[in-house]
């Protein structure tokens, strides 16, 4: 038997290093494989880009969102014009370019939608965690508070507040956040109640950690997954809420375009100008659909059992 000449054999490839993959990496990998999630994320990214580039887009189109085109934008009878080379998505009842207005409207929807969702989640997490961790006395007060907020006829109240305080974008964020945090609070409270009974919390307590430290170090990190899911799903709800307020005339004040007030204008013209109703409506539906689908995928990725 001839000795094997080790030197003549091709060198074996080094065995791949075994990587530890944390739950976050696993979730990220699952999310990236999810075609629906990727499509929605791309759509949202494009929308964000469009919102940021609204000004350059309006310059390219040649119209500002409030320019009234009396030549090509309005028919001799004073009606909106259908999509054409001058106005790709047609015009509204004042001869304003729908494309440019929809682009500007996306700024409102994203700013209010994301802003309100983030504020609501922040308040909801703080209140929910306090209600869940600080014992029955604090809990019963905070739980009643959440009950009161949840049993408000919120849309009516939002309308009333807007008429009292004068409608504005900031007020919209405040109103939407005010009526959304309690739902988050309830979920966080339930989760916190479960977490506080875990052994590691007991261990931290017996080591002398105070309530604030336990809430921040032991409870909060375990709330991140449900909070991310809830934030993603709260954004489309806030966007719909914003557009509803604008539709009812207590949100964004014309002539500043928002998808809601455009649809409100279109209501009187849908029999003669389908594009006037359809395009802002479509923008709104596609945006909320994208956020909802993405939220669903994020939940699946973080909790594959669900």
């Amino acid at each position: 038997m001839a000795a094997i000449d080790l030197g003549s054999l091709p060198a074996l490839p080094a065995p791949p290093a075994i990587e530890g993959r944390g739950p976050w990496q696993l979730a990220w990998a699952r999310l990236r494989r999810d075609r629906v999630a990727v499509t929605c994320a791309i759509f949202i990214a494009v929308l964000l880009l469009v919102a940021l580039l609204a000004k350059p887009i309006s310059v390219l189109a040649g119209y500002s969102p409030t320019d009234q085109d009396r030549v090509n934008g309005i028919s001799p009878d004073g009606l909106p014009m259908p999509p054409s080379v001058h106005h790709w998505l047609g015009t509204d009842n004042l001869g304003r370019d729908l494309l440019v207005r929809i682009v500007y409207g996306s700024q409102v929807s994203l700013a209010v939608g994301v802003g309100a969702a983030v504020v609501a989640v922040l308040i909801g997490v703080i209140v929910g965690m306090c209600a869940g961790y600080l014992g029955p006395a604090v809990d019963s007060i905070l739980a009643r508070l959440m009950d009161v907020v949840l049993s408000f006829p919120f849309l009516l109240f939002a309308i009333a507040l807007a008429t009292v305080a004068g409608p504005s974008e900031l007020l919209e964020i405040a109103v939407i956040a005010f009526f959304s945090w309690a739902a988050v609070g309830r979920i966080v409270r339930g989760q916190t109640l479960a977490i506080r009974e875990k052994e590691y919390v007991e261990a931290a307590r017996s080591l002398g950690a105070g309530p604030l430290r336990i809430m921040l170090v032991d409870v909060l990190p375990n709330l991140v997954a449900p909070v991310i899911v809830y934030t993603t799903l709260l954004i489309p709800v806030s966007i719909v809420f914003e557009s509803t307020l604008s539709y009812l005339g207590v949100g964004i004040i014309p002539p500043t375009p928002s998808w809601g007030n455009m649809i409100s204008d279109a209501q009187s013209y849908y029999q003669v100008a389908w594009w006037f109703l359809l395009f802002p409506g479509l923008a709104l539906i596609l945006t909320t659909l994208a956020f909802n689908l993405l939220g669903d995928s994020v939940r699946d990725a973080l909790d594959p059992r669900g």
Partner: protein
Amino acid sequence: MARFLIRRVLTGLLVVWLISVIVFGLFFVAPHNVAQLLLGKFAAQNQQLVQSVTHQLGLDQPIPVQYAHFLWRLLHGDLGYSYYSHQPVTTLIAQAFPVTASLALGAAVIWLVLGVFIGVLSATRPRSLLDRGATLFALAGLSVPTFVLGLLLLFVFFYQLHVAGVDLFPGSGYVPLTTNPGQWAMHLVLPWITLAVATMAVYVRLTRGQLVEVLGEDFIRTARAKGLREGRVVYRHGLRAALIPVVTQFGIDVGTLLGGVIVTEQVFGLNGLGRMSVQAVTNSDEPVIIAVVLLAAVFVVVANIVVDLLYAVLDPRIRLS
């Protein structure tokens, strides 16, 4: 049981009272002069008139005193007079209530029955075409804002049909049930669908998710093992257990119903409580606003108590205490 009811009714009253304080506070902090508003152009000519009207309405008294008067009258079934139409608020509510009740009840029946039924179908056939269709429908329903759906339905089922020469569904208005039941329903079909779809989507998802879980439990296997028909297993044993979160959701949705009603009534021109309250807000008609908000809050509280009672009926393991 009796103790439970008493406690729930008391906390319910507390919630309603808190809301009345908040509404009252909110509107009386509002910086505007009601008397000036009522008198219109007369106000500028006669400052004394403004003062006497303000006095008549009791608006020159401290806010806590005003609130006490309001509460006293409320306990006697008197909600005051509308600043705008000068009619008793109770009369206005009595006029608008049937419209809103017809709209809300019909929509609730549609979303409950259809939502749960589609949920069951899709839970018993997981990953089938029907299941996927239902999931997609649920997501789409959640994503379409009520007013957009209403306007699209109007465009297709009122306007396009009208153009095609078929006038099946009217574009707006309301016919009382007692006048003509057929016309009543025809006027309400599109509003019902508009109001029901978004909520229905939630029920499809909820029922499906719950039922899939319940059908994997031991008592279902036992029921199957003793030879029950599959239909009986699913509907009598499975669905009953799966319905509890659905009932919870229903209690929550009654609370948010007024929101949907406001938008739907606005789109379809129905003169119900929703439209009335929006008009009251734009006219600064405080007595009407307060009445509608309180009415809505009472409904939410009652619905929540009913929901708690239903738990015990659905799941004998839950004892009310």
